[in-house]
């Protein structure tokens, strides 16, 4: 029997075919490092996984429960700082330290939730920004613990051992690839489980109509807090992964408002409230902003002969385009909001539905 919500949202359950395709795709993703050796290609894939984790994390509270938090950098930062502080000060390996980071994020989310969930709509958005800014400024102003504006540099990452056997020493990008992929698969799995559980229906009921959900006996505050706590722990996981991968964190890279906005945009551009929306968002955003950042676009414009390298325009593009990779986020979000309010995934679905109708 199909349940009413999947009918409403057009989401289908797992059929044998989709299961097989998904498993094949997964297997090939796990096999990629055996064939691809370019560190840059692996780096891009790792960024994709990182964005996916962040986007899926936000999607739980923003997409499913409909509470637009624009303060998720706070949880990202909690994961990053929790893990690195323990590693640098106490020598606790990150695979234990990350739990402290997640714990910190969950506690923070409960505090934030209890303050902000009394507010609705735009007021909730503003409050979530304010709390995240308070967190950022606090981290900045307690240098005895967080090293303040200087940030924390991870000097050495202990090798991962099981018993006496060294599994990996984290020298190459390959172990990070596998960690990132596994975490991304894990967050997608969590999202899938939530969407297909009672919890997911409660969240969506709250999103669609808070008052109606309340009158049906759904404890609004409790379930919003649950959604935020899950969302915060996934986001802090991304933060911890970022910290051990990049090996340097400071308040301007892991706690700024810009990061909160980027996290939201991953989900929005892909399509919120869907399992694969954030994946699509990451697939759109990461390659585009990396292409700008690494000057691929400027170089290819020059190579194609459209712009002469030594002309004023060529020099200008090469010098400046790399600094403006966030511009693409701005343009994409404006285009998506104006022309594809359901995100890229929703837009594709609509196109497909239209074609189907055309065929019939």
């Amino acid at each position, binding site marked *: 029997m199909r349940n009413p919500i999947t009918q409403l949202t057009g989401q289908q359950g797992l059929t044998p075919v989709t299961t097989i395709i998904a498993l094949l795709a997964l297997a090939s993703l796990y096999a990629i490092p055996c064939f691809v050796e370019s560190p840059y290609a692996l780096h891009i894939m790792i960024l994709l996984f990182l964005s996916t984790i962040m986007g899926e994390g936000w999607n739980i509270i923003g997409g499913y429960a409909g509470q637009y938090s624009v303060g998720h950098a706070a949880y990202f930062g909690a994961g990053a700082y929790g893990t690195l502080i323990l590693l640098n000060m106490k020598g606790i390996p990150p695979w234990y330290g990350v739990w402290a980071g997640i714990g910190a994020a969950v506690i923070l989310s409960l505090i934030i939730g209890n303050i902000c969930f009394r507010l609705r709509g735009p007021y909730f958005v503003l409050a979530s920004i*304010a709390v995240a800014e308070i967190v950022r400024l606090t981290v900045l102003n307690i240098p005895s613990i967080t090293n303040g504006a200087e940030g924390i540099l991870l000097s050495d990452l202990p090798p991962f051992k099981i018993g006496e056997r060294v599994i990996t020493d984290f020298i190459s990008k390959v172990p990070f690839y596998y960690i990132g992929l596994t975490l991304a698969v894990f967050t997608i799995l969590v999202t899938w489980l939530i969407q297909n559980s009672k919890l997911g229906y409660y969240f969506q009921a709250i999103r669609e109509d808070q008052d109606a959900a309340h009158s049906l006996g759904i404890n609004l505050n409790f379930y919003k807090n649950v959604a935020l706590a899950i969302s915060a722990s996934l986001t802090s996981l991304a933060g911890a992964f970022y910290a051990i991968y990049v090996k340097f964190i400071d308040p301007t890279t892991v706690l700024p408002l810009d990061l909160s906005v980027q996290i939201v945009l991953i989900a929005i551009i892909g399509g919120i409230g869907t399992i694969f929306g954030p994946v699509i968002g990451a697939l759109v955003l990461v390659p585009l902003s990396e292409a700008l950042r690494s000057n691929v676009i400027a170089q290819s414009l020059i190579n194609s002969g459209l712009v002469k390298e030594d002309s004023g325009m060529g020099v200008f593009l090469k010098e400046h385009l790399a600094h403006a990779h966030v511009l693409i986020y701005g343009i994409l979000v404006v285009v998506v909001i104006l022309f594809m309010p359901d995100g890229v995934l929703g837009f594709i679905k609509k196109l497909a539905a239209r074609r189907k109708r055309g065929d019939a």
Partner: protein
Amino acid sequence: MTFSVLLQALISGILIGGVYALIGIGLTIIFGVMRVINFAHGDLMMVGMYLTYFLFTLAGIDPFVSIAITIPLMFLFGGILQKVFINRILGTLPQNQILLTIGLGLIMSNAMMLAFTSDYKILTTSYSSSSINLGGISISQPLTVSFVITAVITVFLYWFLMKTDTGQAIRATAQDREAAQLMGINVKWMSILAFGIGSSLAGTAGALISPTYYIFPQVGSAFTLKAFVITVLGGMGSIVGATLGGIIIGIVESVGAVTISSDWKDVLVFTIFLLVLLIKPSGLMGKSRM
């Protein structure tokens, strides 16, 4: 701490609060007429700062004189933004409106960075660091001039909104869009006007602080946040509230910096913001709208 230090902080707080009020009034007019929270407000102000900077360095026009050029240009810019982008999302989900304005803000700040790099620019006038000495209390001269200009603009705006037909039409649209439309008011035109006024106020605020502040593409987001704090404190949609809110936040920042520490003054501001949201979300002047 001596009394004079406190008094000095109080006075400079009021002076900078005047500029904050201008930013807040712009945001509140836009919210009042369109129910859109403009997350690009600080970036509009940043555009005003750059305009002022280039008018000064390229044409040698004094920042306080150049607002005569900045105001109409920013009005036009805001009006176009409203017509092309904001107008399309009126009445849709508030989240989408927020994201659209965030996107527009990102485009503005990053386009600026693309054009002029992210280097800090400093506009140094002959009076940038000069001050007036009043019985042991020194008052920044550019801040005093900007406060006077702010006061003049605010009074003019009041007169415009209260006494002229167009002003009354804007207020009517803010009170009830549909009823205003039924009364024959062109609400679309009022929205363009409101956004134009809002962005020219933001641009003016940018022009007024440019002699005393660093100019860089990302300067906007800090002021966007400040604008929210001011308008929520005063009550969304209330001009009197935004004026009060601006001056209160100016005082809190400047007195907080000398009594607590300048590192924590923003934490103080955001804490007040949260408290207002929780205790009295309608703000100081929440009931009376515009």
